[in-house]
């Protein structure tokens, strides 16, 4: 076997660079020549080891470059992305702060029933004017009659003279105990005078009085009244929940707000 010629041929064979006829001839020669077989096997393993060695070297080089870049902080989040992340974080903080401000400043604060009563109890003043007007427009005679007595009592109420109004309404109810309007404003006058038990009793009747035009107002004031009585917070809540769902009740929003505060 000529060493120079055969090594070159062996490499051509191993690298697949021979023509078909050339390869067939080479393989036929190998079958007859054990030394050639051994030389091919040797070169195959040597070249394989060289290839593998370079491949391992490439792998190590890549890993070294990776580690080197890691040491330089290359794999940390890029500055531009960090800035973006900071901006996002800042925006999130502002939003969180905004929510916090809303939570503490705008959200209804939880308060006690007595304080809630103080904030939400305002003696009815809108409809009382209409009632007084209606009593005048009827054109009753100058003598003090039933309507005049009620009108005078309601005038005291409108002026804020709650004790006088209560006395007058009480006197009126002695003669006309079924007058719901008188009972209602007497209850409001009593609430203004801190006579909650008496007021609650009147309002509880009115709250169930079908046909009474101010029935929903009676329930509202009854709920407020319950806020000042012992052990009646539950009934107060139930009344407020009912009123908070009633879109035709003019104090629906106040009822919802008060419920959130309780």
């Amino acid at each position, binding site marked *: 076997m000529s060493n120079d010629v055969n*090594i070159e041929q062996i490499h051509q064979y191993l690298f697949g660079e021979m023509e078909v006829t050339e390869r067939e001839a080479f393989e036929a020669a190998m079958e007859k020549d054990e030394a050639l077989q051994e030389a091919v096997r040797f070169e195959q393993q040597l070249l394989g080891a*060289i290839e593998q060695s370079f*491949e*391992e070297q490439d792998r190590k080089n*890549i890993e070294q470059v990776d580690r080197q870049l890691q040491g330089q902080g290359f794999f940390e989040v890029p500055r531009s992305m960090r800035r973006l992340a900071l901006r996002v974080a800042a925006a999130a903080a502002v939003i969180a702060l905004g929510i916090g401000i809303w939570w503490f400043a705008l959200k209804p604060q939880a308060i006690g029933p007595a304080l809630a009563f103080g904030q939400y109890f305002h003696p009815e003043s809108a409809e009382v004017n209409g009632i007084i007007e209606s009593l005048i427009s009827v054109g009753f005679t100058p003598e003090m009659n039933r309507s005049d007595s009620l009108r005078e009592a309601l005038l005291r109420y409108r002026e804020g003279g709650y004790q006088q109004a209560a006395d007058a309404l009480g006197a009126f109810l002695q003669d006309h105990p079924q007058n719901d309007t008188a009972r209602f404003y007497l209850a409001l006058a009593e609430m203004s005078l801190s006579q909650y038990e008496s007021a609650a009793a009147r309002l509880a009747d009115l709250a169930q009085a079908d046909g009474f035009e101010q029935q929903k107002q009676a329930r509202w004031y009854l709920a407020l009244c319950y806020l000042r009585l012992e052990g009646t917070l539950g009934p107060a809540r139930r009344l407020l929940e009912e009123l908070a769902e009633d879109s035709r009740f003019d104090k629906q929003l106040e009822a919802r707000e008060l419920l959130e505060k309780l």
Partner: protein
Amino acid sequence: MSTEQEWLAELRAGKKSAYEALYHRHFRMVESLVVRLGGGREQARDIFQEALLVLVQSIRKPGFQLTGKLSTLLYAIARNLWLKRKAADKIPIQEAGSLSNFPAGEDGEKAALEKDALLQLVTESLAQLEDDCRAVLRYGIYQNLSHAEIARLMGYTEAYVKVKKFRCLEYLRKIVRNSNLL
């Protein structure tokens, strides 16, 4: 020669500077790809390393020509690697008793040990070679380039490359023969 062709030449030569350049130029692209496909940043680093190695293997193939951009090739390699890895994660682990779990026979173990020993010997021997010798073997054996291409890359004549390659290989042959590993 374009920048990409320069990088290609450096990759063939196994220069670290080529890997560094590719990291700086294309790592973020691969990282975005992997993250977009449900991976993490650490996984993106693994994939990029593997992709670089596959790239080097790809350019070794006979007749390889860079027709498009290197970034396109690297992107395609990285994408395939990541999708393969994700698919592999979904394949259940083989139950005990399957054929793959049988221990290799004594002959197999012996052959593996001999192969490892040969690799270590060749690696140590290559490290002792002069740079030109190692470069000729890298281009000629590992990169499978022709004598003419090696001559062009190294600035030598073809005849010189042919002789150089023969002598360098002969040096390794002697070392291996003397080791009695083969």
